[in-house]
């Protein structure tokens, strides 16, 4: 019996190592996080951080070395949990020489759907993906975005409580990405908890309720986007004021006195400042610049993004 009170997924002190002795590699090093019911959680990290290992552990395809995973309050290897879980792999895990309808029916049957229920779910999936008019065409003839939609539909045919998505939008155009996320939103509205990995940080920021960032097998930050900002780079916006002239040395002090966070470097044609109250601070800076005799060429205001948080937490070094 699946508990109705517990988190959708609860991962505690999960550890996974490969190899032995000196050649031992630690893929997961005490990972802990929760996916709450009805939540959309982004699981982010650079290459080699252990994201795929985590997805494999959650889907029961890899046995952790130690630690505990519960799905709806039950151990992950419990018989009831398989039907509660849907998996959408990163690759197009479909039979390309079957039609859309045949693929949907095949994966529906694998999850125990039969007869009327199967027919209903296939029809729902065809409508949901917008591929009802292509139901009897071979999947192998589809575009990348269409295959992605079928790939997603095959993972949710059995209406799982929890859906694991491993980079669901890799290699698709912006229109298809938008469509896929609207499909996921619809699914989430129906109560499905979603955990996804992605390298599109803007997707994670805009489409997910919470974010877990991992690096080298460990969770380095977790929370909502605002919470991550508070924990890392803060909510200050970055302002660049581009000038038509290069900065002179003698008036720099006057500009710098406006705020301690204004960076003025003689010889450059740009002033950089961090502002927490931009509505008050930006007009003051602009007035000072004009009074000092400079002409403004452009102004750029950058809000802090998940991209900045991610690089702040995981660094700029290549991981491959």
């Amino acid at each position, binding site marked *: 019996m699946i508990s109705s009170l517990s988190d959708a997924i609860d991962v505690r002190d999960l550890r996974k190592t490969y190899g032995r002795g000196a050649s031992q590699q630690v893929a997961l090093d005490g990972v802990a996080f929760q996916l709450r019911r009805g939540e959309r959680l982004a699981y982010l990290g650079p290459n080699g951080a252990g994201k795929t290992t985590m997805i*494999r552990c959650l*889907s*029961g*395809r*890899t*046995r952790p070395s130690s630690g505990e995973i519960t799905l709806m309050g039950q151990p992950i290897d419990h018989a009831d949990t*398989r*039907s509660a*879980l849907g*998996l959408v*792999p*990163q*690759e*197009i*895990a*479909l*039979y390309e020489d079957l039609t859309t309808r045949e693929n949907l029916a095949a*994966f529906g049957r*694998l*999850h*125990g759907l039969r007869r009327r229920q199967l027919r209903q779910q296939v029809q729902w999936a065809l409508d949901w993906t917008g591929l009802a008019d292509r139901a009897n065409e071979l999947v192998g003839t589809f575009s990348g975005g269409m295959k992605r939609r079928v790939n997603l539909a*095959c*993972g949710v045919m059995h209406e799982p409580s929890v859906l694991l998505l491993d980079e669901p939008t890799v290699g698709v155009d912006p229109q298809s990405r938008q469509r896929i996320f609207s499909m996921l939103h619809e699914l989430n509205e129906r109560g499905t908890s979603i955990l996804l990995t992605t390298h599109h940080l803007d997707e994670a920021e805009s489409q997910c309720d919470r974010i877990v960032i991992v690096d080298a097998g460990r969770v380095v930050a977790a929370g909502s986007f605002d919470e991550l900002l508070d924990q890392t780079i803060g909510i200050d916006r970055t302002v660049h004021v581009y000038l038509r002239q290069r900065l002179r040395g003698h008036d720099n002090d006057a500009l710098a006195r406006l705020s301690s966070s204004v960076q003025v470097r003689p010889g450059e044609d740009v002033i950089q400042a961090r502002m927490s109250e931009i509505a008050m601070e930006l007009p003051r800076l602009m007035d000072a610049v004009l009074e000092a005799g400079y002409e403004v060429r452009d102004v750029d205001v950058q809000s802090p993004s998940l991209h900045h948080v991610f690089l702040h937490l995981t660094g700029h070094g290549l991981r491959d």
Partner: protein
Amino acid sequence: MIWQVIEIHLRRLRHNRMEWLLAFVVPIAFFSIFALIFTRGVGSTPRVKVVLVNDCQPIESTGDDLTHTVLDLVPEKAERIMEHLRQAEGLRVMPETDEGAETMVRRGSATIAIVLTRHEDDVAARLLNDASDEVASQVVTALVTRAFMQADFPGTASEDGGTSEAASDDTASENQNAFGRFVSTLSTGEVSRTEDDAIAGANSVPFAAAGDFGRIRMPKIDVVNVLGQSKSNPVISVYAAGIAVMFLLFGATNGGGMLLEERENQTLERLLSSQMTMDHLLLGKWFYLTLLGCVQVTIMFVWAQFAFGLDLVGHLDGFLMMTVVTAAAASSFGLFLATLCQTRGQLNGLSVVLVLTMSALGGSMVPRYVMSETLREAGLWTFNAWALDGYDKVFWRDLPPSDLGPQLGVLMATAFGLLVLSRILAIRWEYS
């Protein structure tokens, strides 16, 4: 630019071991296999399995007929012929069993039974032949002829090149002269059929020469095909089975490759995260490949019946038994190779090498009776050989299913063993 293309392909070739194997090693390997088969470069020359029967018993004599007893030299000559045949290098003499010589030929225990009989006041030979071996009857006829000559003329060259100590110089000289005249006659083609040959029947091969060359008379040797005489197309079942089994193996390895495709595109992940287990997956694929193999072989034999007159309907029980176990073994082989390999490319290369090698050694390409003893024994490590032997028993020898025990047993054991090995190898994909 052309050089750039060449360079790119040379660099790709350098990194692709399987392409190396297929381009350079496989052709040499196959050339060597066929060279060994046709030059018999490995092991002994193929020897024909024969069973010897001496029906030339002494005539029962009464006290009133002492003269006849004294002149009856036939049993003694027959015994000499038997002795020469036993010593012939080209023959492997099988001990006669209770089932009788002809039955031994029918069951495949011997290729030819050499039966020495009394013909007037001389010895004649009947060769009870299995016509599926198109070479054996000619070899044995020649060896029997030589044995007759050696029995008639102790002074002629013996097997080891020496002369019989018992022959006197005069006798030896006379024999050599007569033998010379005989050989000369043979070389000018003046050999004719005897009257008895005419009654030998359409499926027998009469071989006799008339004429008196001093003491030489051409021996009377009748070749009677005890197997194949009623077949409308004697070798068609052999070729149908050989080609069917070879393509069954290709089909099974190709089908097994679907498992690797599923692994490569992560469909396997998806399948195993559903209610399906690896046991379900492997057994499902095994049953599918076995069913497909059965249909594949059946279509081949149905076509052979319609187009070439093979009697499929008359051998349906044995055919079905052999087809099911052969398809099952081929399916297990395909799954075993698939689980052994890491990629589809590896599987393609390995399957081509193994299937062609097994088919060459196992008799799918060249009949095993032309191979040396060593290659024939090596062929028993392929299940082509066992499958072909089974089909041979069904269609050629008309044996009942109860005689298929060894073939069914080996193929079933192969099917089971390889399936278990596949399951063990697939554990690495199940959990990691």
